[in-house]
Structures are given as C-alpha cells and as structure tokens.
C-alpha cells in the first residue's frame, strides 16, 4: 500500500484543483453572469432597502398581513442561520398539544367557530423552518381578517392571493403555494 500513497496524494491534489476549485469557481462566474439576481438569493427591495428574499419566509404577526406557517428555525422562528424542522415524532404528545394550541389560536385570530378544522399547513412547522409559502386554503381563511384590518374588500384581497399563487409546474409537480412575503408586499403596495 505504501507504493500507492504518493499517487494517492497527487491524485487528491489534482482532483481538488479540478473539482473542488476550478469547477465551483467557473460555475459561480457563469451563474453570476447569466442569473445574477437568483445566484445572489432572489432578494426583494422596497424603497431601496432589501427586506428579504422571495424564497425565504419571514415572520408576520400584524393582522393586516398574511401569517406564515409555524417555524422551528431558531428560538423565535424564521431564523435563516438555523434552518430546520421541529423533529417532533408523529406520536409525541408534545406534537398533539402544540398543534391543538395553534389551531385554537388560529381560530380566534381569524374569527372561526370553535372546532372548525384548520388547514394542516397552518398548524404544523415546515421542514426548513423557512417555508416561504402557505396553502391556498390557509390564505382563503386569513383573507377576511386581512381585509378587515386594511378596510379592503375580501374580493380585493383574494384577487391578490390568486395573483401570488404559484401553480404546479408541468401541471403535476409539487403543490400550489401562496408566497407570503410577496403577497404582503403587494398588499402594502395596493393599500
């Protein structure tokens, strides 16, 4: 084996140069030329200041905004330096309690009668903790609250929801989703 150590060392260095340095540097160069905005993280600006990324969810609590999903990233949620899920097991009593509490809070917030089933995405934490989207069902239930807080009609709000709903690529991949940050910025713009 000792005879193979020198070629092993040389091969490691040669392939690090090719695959570990030249390849990512070249890809960065091309990406920055062709898709600069996306390569830099799809940042969104308002009045000249960057307010976030259209791909990364952020916290919203005020009634005039659509609220994102619960987040397990960091202590307060939506911490993009600590992406991750709750990792609560499917039969963990804490999961049942947490979801029940969230469902109760969601109903109170949106004026729904006690016991109304709540869209599952509204009461569960996402995998990344940074989910930028909510389901259409979730947005539909929040729309009256948002409309009230903004003195808009529910129809006006739902029109904006529709405009910020991404459908399934090719008609079959993934699920339709409503981008919360983009929708809230559009609401501020409209009203």
């Amino acid at each position, binding site marked *: 084996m000792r*005879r193979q150590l*020198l070629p*092993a060392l040389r091969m*490691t260095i*040669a*392939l690090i140069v*090719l695959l*570990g*340095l030249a*390849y990512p540097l070249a890809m*960065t160069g091309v*990406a920055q030329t062709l898709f600069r905005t*996306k390569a830099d*993280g*799809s940042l969104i600006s308002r009045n000249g200041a*960057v*307010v*976030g*990324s259209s*791909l*990364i969810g*952020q*916290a919203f*609590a005020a009634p005039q905004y659509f609220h994102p999903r619960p987040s397990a990233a960091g202590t307060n949620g939506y*911490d993009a330096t*600590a992406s*991750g*899920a*709750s*990792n*609560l097991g*499917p*039969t963990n009593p804490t*999961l*049942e309690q947490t*979801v*029940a509490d969230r*469902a109760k809070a969601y109903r109170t917030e949106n004026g729904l009668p006690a016991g109304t*089933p709540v869209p*599952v*995405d509204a*009461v*569960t934490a*996402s*995998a*990344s903790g*940074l*989910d*930028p*989207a*909510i*389901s259409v*069902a*979730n947005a539909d239930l929040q729309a009256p609250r948002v409309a009230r807080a903004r003195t808009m009609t529910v129809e006006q709000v739902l029109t904006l929801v529709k405009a910020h709903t*991404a459908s*399934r*690529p090719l008609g079959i*991949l*993934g*699920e339709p989703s409503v981008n919360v940050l983009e929708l809230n910025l559009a609401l501020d713009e409209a009203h």
Partner: protein
Amino acid sequence: MSAAAWAQVAIVVVALAVAAPLLGRYLARVYGGGAAPGDRIFGPVERLIYRVCGIDPEGEQHWKVYAYSLLAFSFVSLLILYAQVRLQGHLPLNPDHFKGMPPVLAFNTAVSFLTNTNWQNYAGESTAAQLTQMAGFAFHNFVSAAAGAAVGVALVRGLIRRRTGNLGNFWVDLTRTCTRVLLPIAIVGALFFVSQGVVQNFHAARTVTTVEGATQTLPGGPVASQEVIKEAGQNGGGPYNANSSHPFENPNPLSNGVQIFLILLIPFSFPFAYGRMVGDRKQGYVVVATMFVLWLGTSLAIMAFETAPSPVLAQAGASQAATATQSGGNMEGKEVRFGAASCGLFAGSTTGTSTGAVNCAHDSLTPLAGGTVLLNIMFGEVDPGGTGSGLYGMLVFALLAVFIAGLMVGRTPEYLGKKIQAAEMKLVVVYILAVPLAILTFSAASVLLKAALGSIFNPGPHGLSEVVYAFTSQANNNGSAFAGLNGNTTWYNITGGIAMLIGRFFLMIPVLAIAGSLARKQPVPPSAGTFPTGSKLFFGLLLGVVILVVGLTYFPVLALGPIVEHLVGHFHV
C-alpha cells in the same frame, strides 16, 4: 393519493426509462477499454492528470493493488479533509469567520464525506466555511461516488475476465468517472439549479430588516455547484442544515423533480451498462427490475402513508383532506410547495439510494412511513443504491441467490459461467453480516449507556427508532437522519464514524476480493443444469432473497420501533 401524485411518479419513471438505458450505454463504453465518446475533449484533461500524478493509464492492477490504491486514496483524502475542517478558521474563503470543528466532530464529518455517507452532526450555515464546502465536501461528493463506480466496474470485470488476477486500473476508473460522467452532469445541473433560484455566490451572510422590522440573516455560498453533485453522486450532505427542504437548495417543485431524477439516474444506469459489458443485456434487466420494484414499492408506500391523515394531527383539529386548495396529509416537517406526496417520492428515492438528502423531516414521518424509509436503508442501498455501489450490492445478493438455488438442487452454483465456491461465499457472508453487526451492536450499546440515552429527543418507541436510524443510516452510508437525535456527542461522533468506515470498507474490500477470485476462473459452458440468471424466475428469486435476508435480520428491531409506534398511535394501546 391524488392524480397529480400518481402523475408525478409516472413522469419520474418515464424520464428514467428514457435516460438510464442511454446513460448505461455510454457508461459501458467509458469503462469498456476501447474508444469512447468524447475522447477528444476528455482525453487531454485525463492525460494531464495521469502525467501530473505519475500514473501509467495502461497499467493493469491485480485486485490487491486495486484495493491498496482505493485504500491509499481514501486514507490520504481523509487526512486532508480532516485538516481542512479543523483548520478552516485559518484558511481563505471563510467570509462568515467560522472556527475549525472540534476533533471528534471533525473525525465524524471527515469520515462521513469520505465514505459517501454525508451524515451531518453539524449545521452547514453556522459551521462550515465556503472553502470547506466546495474543496472539502463537494470534492468528496465527486470522488466518493467515483470510487464506488470503480469498485462496481472492477466486480463486473471480474465476472467477464478469465484466468487473470487483474481488474483494470483504479486511478483510471476514478478519473474517468469524474471527468466523463459526474462533471458533465454537474455542470449542466448546477446552471439549471441556479436558473431556478439556488444560490451560487461567495457573499458573507447578509442581515436585512424584514417588513415587520425584525432582522433576518440570509446565508450565501457556492450552493448550486454542490447541490447537483450531492444528488447525482448519491451523497446527500446539504450545504445548509435543512438540506433539500431549504428554499436556497431546492426552491420549487421543478427543482425538486430534477433532484429526484438526479438521485436515481446514475444508479439505475449502471445495471444497463452491466448488461452490455457482460454481453447479455438480460442480466442487466434482471438487476434493474429488482431495484425498480423495491424502489417503486417503498416510494408508493411512503407516499400513501404520508398523504393519509395522521390521527394525532386530526385529533388536534387539523384538516388534512386533499382538496383543490391544499395538499393535506401529514404536513409536520414538510414544505407547502412540495406537499406530502413529493416528500414521499423523495424519501423513497433518497433512502433507496445511498443519498440521504431530505426534502422533509424524516423524524416527523408517520410511524409506518418512518419504518419504510428505515427498511429501505436496511436493504443495503440496492434499490437502486449509489454510483456503482448499488450495482455491486445487488450483484452480491445475486451470488447469494444462485448459491441458495444451488443448495436446493445440490449443485455447485454458477453465475455468468463462473463457479461460485467456498472462497466467494465466505466473502459474501462478510459483506452481508458486517453492516447489521455494526448497526445492532452500536444501537444496543447506545440504549444501554446513560450518556448516549441523553441524545434521544422523542419519547417511547420513536426514541429507539431514532437511535437505530442513526446507525442504520451511517453504516449503510446513507446519511439521512431522524434528526431529533443529538448526534454531536463524543459517543455518537466516534461510534458513528466507525460504523461508516465498516459500512464502506468491509463491503468494498470483500467485493474486490470476490472480483479477483472470479477473474482467475475459467468459465464453464452452460448446461441443462445451469440456472438461467437472465430469466424472470431469477428476478423473482433475487427479489425474494433481498427481502428475506434483510427482513429476517431486522424484523425484531423494526417491530420494537416503528411497528409498536404505529399500533400505539392508532389504537392508543
């Protein structure tokens, strides 16, 4: 399951049915020894590499020299990666000023990327410098896959060749896999991913003020170039902690579909190459059919379990019905843009291959789905497995299958005309037993040791599943996790590292020894008593052997973990 969910499976199957035979034909020529497509482009690069490294590309290696080369390369590149992660605080391209990893974490991490496992006891966005990610982790994503391909190809040569001890040249197989297979796929895939929103930059993390006035710090990094090889080489180690559920790694359902395709593409292509290389394509079809049935069955099962309502979430007041306005199902630990069905397909694919990337949190899967992903890894990464490693894993099962068939009729078994005798069967047994022994021993020790028990996050049978999953994933070089378990302790870092080394080299070295032993044999002409290994009957036998061997080995521990949990959750027993 919705019509869209079924259509999603169908489109992946169709894409693979078109691409895998074509790539298989190309692979057969890359490893076949003669002229190959693209010689004019790749030839000069490869000759430069051989010259710089002092390698004679025509030099044939005996199986032992081939194995020594693999071990020497692994040893040297392991040391360099260990130094990289320890010293990253003093190296360039570290805009976020991350410090070096402590020794036990550095050991686990370096072994993890060396062995194609990509188990991560750290969170990328708060721990790993950009230079470490690209010149350490992503580099190993290429070469660990290429080393797997080399061993797979060496085994095929052992079956083809006669009266020689030589299996080819490890350095040539390693280099050609990188330049001709992985790098072209990576270049195209990386640019596609950037076009979808995967980041590719060298910025430090950027702090912004959000709409409601809070602050949020968005990470940067050369992510797309790593993302593509993470999937295409069945590595699975995400630049960020949330892996393929992170929007900067996997921004939309289209990028998600492409990731699933890339995970499966090369492993499903190798059996087609195998059939061509041995001159009997039916041999390849039997292997690919066995892989396909296991992958499809487990993936559909996970999709069905996850799209069905979870009783706990229903109890808590969540509406989980699939309607026009929501995907429904068990959405804990899942992303809205993917939904429960895409998660199931991804989970089946990432655990059937040795990938281990995740687009949803496996720890929060329903008990039966969690049990299925665990079982999928326990199959030993053969449905369809990793680059090259899926093929050699399934061929070892094929040797076991012909042996069992031979026992039934009292005849010395043959595979492709090569007599399978005591020497080969001993090595097959080492291969089959090494991994379960590591998993079950380390898991048992972990539930006995107080210090190790403290790492468990979820109570009850699920806690046992977390521990078993950790060692199953590491010993099978998968790398996905029931991530509630805190693996960043001295005990888990060291035992996990050992499990990964066993799962890599206690399989690769026996495979090379089998290849060496087979290469020396003179094939016997087929007779009336020869078991036809290119037949439907053999497909059934092979499938049965995989399920029986794995089922008998692991059923008790699966019963104590996921199965008990399912019963508890369903019947409140």
